[in-house]
């Protein structure tokens, strides 16, 4: 008897990869799926379930289903992909300096002078001196957002 192709193994592996890629390319853009990557984990969990069912077929009913070799390889790869994502989310992205010397609430914000995208010098003081186009008044506050950039 011709043995059946074990699709669950392939679907499971594909879902793990899709889940992994979905985070940087899609879910990381939205805070609700970024801060706790539940949507990515959900896709990966479904993938692992498919994989487990495929492996049970391959090893439990080998006369009926193919997939012992492919299943073993894709199983290891899937676990590696999920593991890599967990490493990134639970460890790598938390490796940040303490920044204990950062200005705290109530302290004076350090003055600075940097260039904007038109190469004009901009300082904290100059920001408070300039009028906002919308209100024709100087700003009541400045949100300073430091970010990693293109790195």
């Amino acid at each position: 008897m011709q043995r059946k192709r074990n699709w669950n193994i392939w679907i499971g592996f594909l879902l793990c990869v899709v889940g992994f890629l979905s985070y940087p390319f899609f879910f990381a853009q939205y805070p609700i799926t970024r801060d706790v990557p539940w949507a990515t984990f959900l896709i990966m969990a479904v993938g692992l379930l498919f994989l487990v069912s495929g492996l049970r077929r391959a090893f439990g009913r080998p006369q009926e289903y193919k997939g012992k070799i492919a299943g073993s390889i894709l199983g290891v790869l899937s676990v590696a992909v999920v593991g890599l994502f967990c490493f990134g989310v639970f460890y790598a992205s938390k490796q940040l300096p303490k920044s204990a010397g950062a200005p705290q609430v109530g302290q004076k914000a350090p003055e600075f002078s940097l260039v904007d995208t038109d190469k004009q010098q901009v300082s904290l003081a100059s920001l408070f001196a300039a009028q906002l186009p919308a209100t024709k008044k100087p700003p009541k506050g400045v949100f300073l957002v430091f970010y990693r950039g293109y790195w």
Partner: protein
Amino acid sequence: MEVVAVSVDSPEQSKDLQKEAGLTYVILSDLNAEAIRKYDLLHSKAGQDGHDVARPGEFLVDSNGVVRWVNLTEDFRVRARSEQFLAQARQLK
């Protein structure tokens, strides 16, 4: 309110980003990480090719130059949300 973004990217890189994403706020270039150092946000060698970058950090400064709110994330995936900014802006009368 004024929003100002600071990174080690060059003015040209930031200009591209500004155009691409249609950003209207001020983007400042801190190539030598001077301001980033003053705010103790230097993340040394964390850039892709090993150069220094800023770790994410957000501050609200009032017109007296005093810090009114600070957000220093412990996970660079997790940044301040726009709702937080808006809530802080409303409090600053």
